[in-house]
């Protein structure tokens, strides 16, 4: 943990939620770039993915997670023969970003479900904490 604060249930959920947010944003960028066309193969957009890692707090035994970074997928862009396209190269080919829209939608849905799960767990935990505090 960057700061020396002890990890609580709230900190744990917060971190996991931001990691899910990163993942969702990555999938959204991929979707936004679906169908984008470039002149050369190297210039074409490659999809990005968030990589998750566990973050264990030994003092409390809680394990949160965070997004360790983004990796660019190494998939080859789709070569399409389209000689009348303004970006076509000498052979009349354009390169299209290799984004699988369905896979990205599934990624967003899964991320949203996990986000919901976290919110639910936090709500339950918060309610129990409040019950304990308010009990006289």
């Amino acid at each position, binding site marked *: 943990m960057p700061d020396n604060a002890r990890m609580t249930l709230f900190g*744990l959920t917060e*971190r996991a939620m931001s990691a899910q947010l990163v993942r969702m944003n990555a999938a959204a960028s991929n979707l936004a770039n679906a169908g984008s066309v470039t002149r050369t193969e190297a210039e074409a957009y490659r999809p990005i993915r968030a990589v998750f890692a566990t973050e264990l707090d030994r003092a409390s035994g809680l394990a949160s*997670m965070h997004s360790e970074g983004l990796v660019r997928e190494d998939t080859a862009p789709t070569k399409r023969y389209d000689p009348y396209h303004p970006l076509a190269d000498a052979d009349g080919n354009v390169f299209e970003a290799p984004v699988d829209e369905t896979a990205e939608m599934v990624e967003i849905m899964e*991320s949203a479900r996990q986000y919901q799960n976290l919110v639910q767990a*936090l709500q339950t935990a918060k309610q129990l904490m409040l019950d304990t505090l308010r009990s006289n």
Partner: protein
Amino acid sequence: MNEQIFGIHGAALELRSQRMGLLASNIANAATPGYKARDIDFAAALEDKLTSGSVPFGSERHFVYRLPTMPSLDGNTVELGREQIAFTENAVAYSATLAFVQGKVNTLTRALKGE
């Protein structure tokens, strides 16, 4: 003192709260590759807490790793349905234990007030 008044319920409440954190950790790591879902052996941990009280929470012998129904390719053993059920069960048990503690407190308060 604490043990005398609340009996098993004080220790159980603390343990329930710790288990809640552990289950929340599992839910948070549902998409982390290679994460192994953990739970505590509640009976053993409670026994330890009551008898010695010196074994801190987090000592390895209280932890049990979940056996996945179907192992996944990325090595993650979290099954969301299972974790949610365990979380709910733990929350209900927490409420129950809390009710017992509250009952004790109410009894004591009434005795002190002399009603």
